[in-house]
């Protein structure tokens, strides 16, 4: 008997006969249904009970697809009939499941055509629940088992199954929503498809207008975003390079103090820097007031707009460029520079003709990352934008503002997506293969050459200024939370902390009275749910990418890394459009937040996995295979244990990123599931800076401790006898890149 088929048969039967077929209004984790009319109440009934009661008869063909594999369960997997039956049952079952889900909604038939053909249905259905989910999974794995039996990837059930699962997930939660968004951009107000409408929206003057060149009117948002992103990309690359040079090539003993900088973007919610900039340079900001007093000037709002966003984004994203470029600078083998010097080149000549050209691909990479980051950034423009509109915030206002124009949001999202995807594509096609990393591992001794003075001294100056500025900014964030009312009343107070995080102990136990607790616990819970799922999906994907060969692998890789380049705002809009109606009815639940985190952060897990897996000798897997273990066993017993540090890193980083995310979250939160970041933004919009800053400080402290605990744990794992060293925090560099 084929055990794999048996497993998925049982899963499918459980889905069809035991669990509620439709989505539960009380949420995924409620279990009231067990005691409230189950299994006959039609809201909670499993599909089989619905059918027995003569309801939802269109579900009955699913049973056929579910049970068909029983016919071949005793056959050998090399029997052509085996694979044929499984492929057909799985593939058709999946198609039928989706087709009926999309055709019949809460108002009966979903399209006029079906209504015309089949007549009035007189019934309706809600979104997929547990039952439908399990049945879908069982169909999916029927299909992959069938495909494997045809000899694809050496007939490996585990590998084909994983590939199928990842493709299904990415398709469902990345491609489907984005396509849905595209389609809604093509619709006019009546829901008719029209290219003309799309083009008129797409080439709207508000997006592409160039008035700012000739008059005082502002330019289109696309140009605003583009010019900002180009500036941020260039400047962060420059600053990042300066930092990297000082950190690695100055010979300064204090240089290692710069490294903690790289942790900052991981633990700082993206808009917090914007807040600090307001505290410093806003109308009632410290610096503004000081300068105004000194020179008798009228305080101005100059910081709101391009200058403010630019400063905030430079502060936020320079550490990312730093992180990337440290790797690049360290990747240049000292022996290259030593060779150059023994050939009579001076330090300056060496730097100019050897070191710098070798860094070129790295510099381009850092630039593109800065560009994408700036394009996708939502928090800082929201806080500091003023009249300077950028794409990401415009998308938000199109949805939540008085306009509520989903079509416009979709068009803007497409414009933004085109920019980021182009940059992403350029980065991969053009830089992916070009690596000048010259360090080869063995036998590459030598001491990194010091920088020439004419490079080094300006670098010192910049680093000192910038470092001080960063310190002041973070100081402001901490200090701001203890001030009564910024700019007016600077007496110290715990007021904001008490409002937000008050705790009382009464006869019922601990009473979380503060206004922030609700969103705080929700955030922790959702981030903690998303983290292991993100890490798991990421690592499995990494395994497939690093260790397996199959047709279409390049497309697979591109697809899984794509969500890297999709800005959060775009995902937010796309999810709202795609998951608002059955069969995937998720908006307003915690599940949609979890899912958005999984797919937003999946590339982090993939990168971490790839980084550490490519350091594992491939012959370890092969040894396990030749010793008779199958791929699943090899994955579980050899690869996973050896990747423990990488798993830990992926866990922590996806957790932390889920806590700091704002751009997609702000579209997806609901009253019931509010997240910390959107709560803070809400306070900022009410000019309630005190609480916002206090809360941000708490978040930063929480995440800092999480990261610190992880570093400790990984450090321990490194020194403990039973782990391979060297796999630890390589995950980190890529982990922060792109929100």
């Amino acid at each position, binding site marked *: 008997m084929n055990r794999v088929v048996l497993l998925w048969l049982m899963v499918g039967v459980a889905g069809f006969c035991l669990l509620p077929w439709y989505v539960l209004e009380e949420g995924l984790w409620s279990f009231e249904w067990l005691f409230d009319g189950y299994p006959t109440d039609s809201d909670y009934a499993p599909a089989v009970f619905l059918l027995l009661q003569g309801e939802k008869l269109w579900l009955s063909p699913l049973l056929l697809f579910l049970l068909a594999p029983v016919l071949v369960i005793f056959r050998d997997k090399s029997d052509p009939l085996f694979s044929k039956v499984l492929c057909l049952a799985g593939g058709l079952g999946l198609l039928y499941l989706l087709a009926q889900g999309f055709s019949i909604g809460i108002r009966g038939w979903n399209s006029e055509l079906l209504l015309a053909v089949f007549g009035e249905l007189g019934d309706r259905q809600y979104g997929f629940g547990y039952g439908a989910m399990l049945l879908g999974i069982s169909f999916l794995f029927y299909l992959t088992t069938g495909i494997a039996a045809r*000899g694809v990837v*050496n*007939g*490996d059930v585990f590998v084909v199954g994983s590939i199928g699962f990842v493709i299904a997930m990415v398709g469902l939660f990345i491609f489907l929503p984005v396509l849905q968004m595209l389609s809604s951009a093509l619709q006019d107000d009546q829901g008719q498809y029209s290219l003309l409408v799309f083009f008129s929206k797409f080439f709207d003057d508000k997006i592409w207008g160039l008035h700012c060149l000739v008059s005082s009117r502002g330019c289109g948002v696309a140009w605003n975003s583009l010019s900002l992103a180009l500036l941020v990309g260039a400047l962060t690359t420059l600053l990042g390079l300066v930092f990297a040079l000082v950190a690695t090539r100055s010979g300064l003993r204090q240089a290692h103090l710069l490294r903690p900088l790289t942790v900052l973007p991981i633990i700082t919610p993206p808009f917090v820097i914007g807040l600090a900039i307001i505290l410093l340079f806003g109308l009632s900001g410290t610096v503004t007031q000081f300068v105004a007093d000194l020179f008798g000037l009228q305080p101005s709002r100059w910081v709101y707009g391009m200058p403010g966003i630019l400063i905030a984004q430079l502060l936020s994203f320079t550490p990312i460029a730093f992180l990337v470029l440290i790797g690049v600078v360290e990747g240049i083998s000292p022996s290259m520079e030593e060779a150059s010097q023994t050939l009579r080149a001076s330090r300056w000549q060496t730097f100019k003709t050897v070191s710098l050209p070798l860094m070129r691909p790295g510099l381009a990479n850092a630039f593109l990352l800065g560009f994408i980051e700036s394009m996708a950034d939502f928090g800082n423009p929201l806080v500091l934008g003023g009249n300077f509109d950028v794409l990401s915030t415009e998308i938000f206002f199109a949805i939540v503002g008085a306009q509520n124009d989903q079509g416009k949001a979709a068009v803007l999202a497409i414009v933004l997506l085109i920019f980021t995807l182009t940059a992403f594509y350029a980065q991969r096609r053009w830089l992916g293969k070009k690596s000048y990393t010259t360090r080869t591992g063995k036998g590459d001794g030598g001491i990194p050459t010091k920088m020439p003075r004419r490079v080094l001294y300006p670098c010192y100056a910049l680093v000192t200024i910038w470092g001080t500025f960063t310190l002041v900014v973070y100081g402001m964030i901490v200090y701001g939370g203890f001030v009564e009312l910024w700019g007016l009343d600077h007496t110290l107070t715990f007021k904001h902390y008490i409002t937000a995080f008050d705790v009382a102990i009464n006869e019922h136990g601990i009473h979380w009275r503060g206004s922030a607790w609700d969103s705080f616990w929700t955030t922790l819970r959702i981030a903690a749910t998303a983290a292991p799922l993100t890490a798991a999906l990421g690592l499995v994907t990494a395994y497939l990418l690093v260790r397996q060969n199959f047709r279409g692998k390049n497309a697979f890789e591109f697809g899984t890394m794509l969500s890297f380049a999709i800005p959060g705002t775009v995902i937010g809009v796309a999810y709202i459009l795609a998951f608002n109606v059955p069969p995937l009815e998720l908006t307003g639940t915690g599940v949609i937040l979890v899912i958005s985190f999984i797919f937003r952060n999946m590339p982090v897990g993939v990168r971490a996995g790839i980084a550490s897996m490519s350091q594992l*000798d491939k*012959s*370890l897997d*092969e*040894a*396990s*295979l*030749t*010793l*008779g*273990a*199958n*791929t699943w*066993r090899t994955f579980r*017993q*050899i690869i996973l*244990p*050896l990747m423990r540090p990488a798993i830990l890193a992926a866990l922590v980083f996806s957790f932390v990123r889920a806590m700091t995310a704002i751009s997609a979250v702000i579209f997806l939160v609901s009253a019931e599931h509010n997240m910390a970041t959107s709560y803070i933004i809400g306070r900022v919009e009410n000019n309630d800076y005190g609480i916002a800053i206090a809360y941000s400080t708490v978040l930063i402290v929480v995440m800092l401790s999480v990261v610190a605990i992880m570093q400790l744990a990984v450090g321990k794992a490194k020194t403990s*006898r*039973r*782990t*391979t060293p060297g796999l630890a925090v390589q995950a980190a560099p890529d982990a922060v890149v792109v929100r």
Partner: protein
Amino acid sequence: MQTTSIHSKAASVEFRNVSKIYGETVTAVDGVSLKVEAGELVTLLGPSGCGKTTTLRMIAGLEMASSGSILIGDADVTLLPATDRDVSMVFQSYALFPHMSVLENVAYGLKVSGMKKPEVRVRALNGLELVGLTGYGDRLPSELSGGQQQRVAVARALVLEPQVLLFDEPLSNLDAKLRRQVREEIRELQQSLGLTVVYVTHDQEEALAVSDRIIVMRNAGIAQAGTPRELYEEPADSFVADFIGEANLMDVTIEQVDAVAGTAEVSLAGVNITLPSRGMVAGPAKLAVRPNRLELKAPEDVGGLPGTVIKCTYVGNHMEYVVRLAQGEWFATSDDVGTVHTAGAEVSVHFRARGPVLLSA
């Protein structure tokens, strides 16, 4: 090393016109047919990129043949993945699982095949005993020396009693002295257990020392297969002659062939030699002469070719000379470290008996 609760289920390996093509264009193995008999140790030998490792990995099932069929015993395993083949492999890097103890490593394959725990333990311990590592079971691989790690890798492969045991350059990570010892141990084990072994190396001396038969590979195909002695003494072509022990190659003319005696008269710049004809006919041919089959004598000695020593190196147990002749520069060695022909000396170069081998031009 003689205790064996480990038995051999040795089986033959056969390739029938097997090719391996990567992508569209890169042919790693091109239409290879070969047979390794049960209980035989066969070496795949060749320069890097000749397809020997790919061939080995196709036996293991780690690479799938693009065409042709592979048989182990009488069973066609062409389409079976590594997991389902009864083949074990010792990797170049040993590939010991760093997170498992030595015993766990050796027991891994047994455990995976679903054997009961006590039996797994007994067999694993037997395996360690077989390679002389009794008592090392609780250590981690990182706590063993290179040679010991190598033995663990061998034990891990052996305890499964595979039909075929594969070695992928198993000695390349050991230092020179250890190499000879480990290579002898492998050979002893193979012979005492009657294992079928396929062994990949690029070191011709190692191949000559351990093999029953050697298959020399070149450019994705087989250049020649035979016993070590056949390959050394009767190379099929100049590539094999030069790859297995160096050879000086020179153009000669076969004057006449004595079909009855199987000998050929060869003339080279006025010097006539008689040597086995190897089925060749009169006309141009090539002559391969091993460096140690050349003898340098005083210039007055007749029957030799005149030459000038241009380089003379003392390497301990023998002398190495480069001699310039009208025919080119030849490399010669001499065990006589007492008599030295210094650079610039005129010499007469003679062929020793059973030295030169005729090759087709």
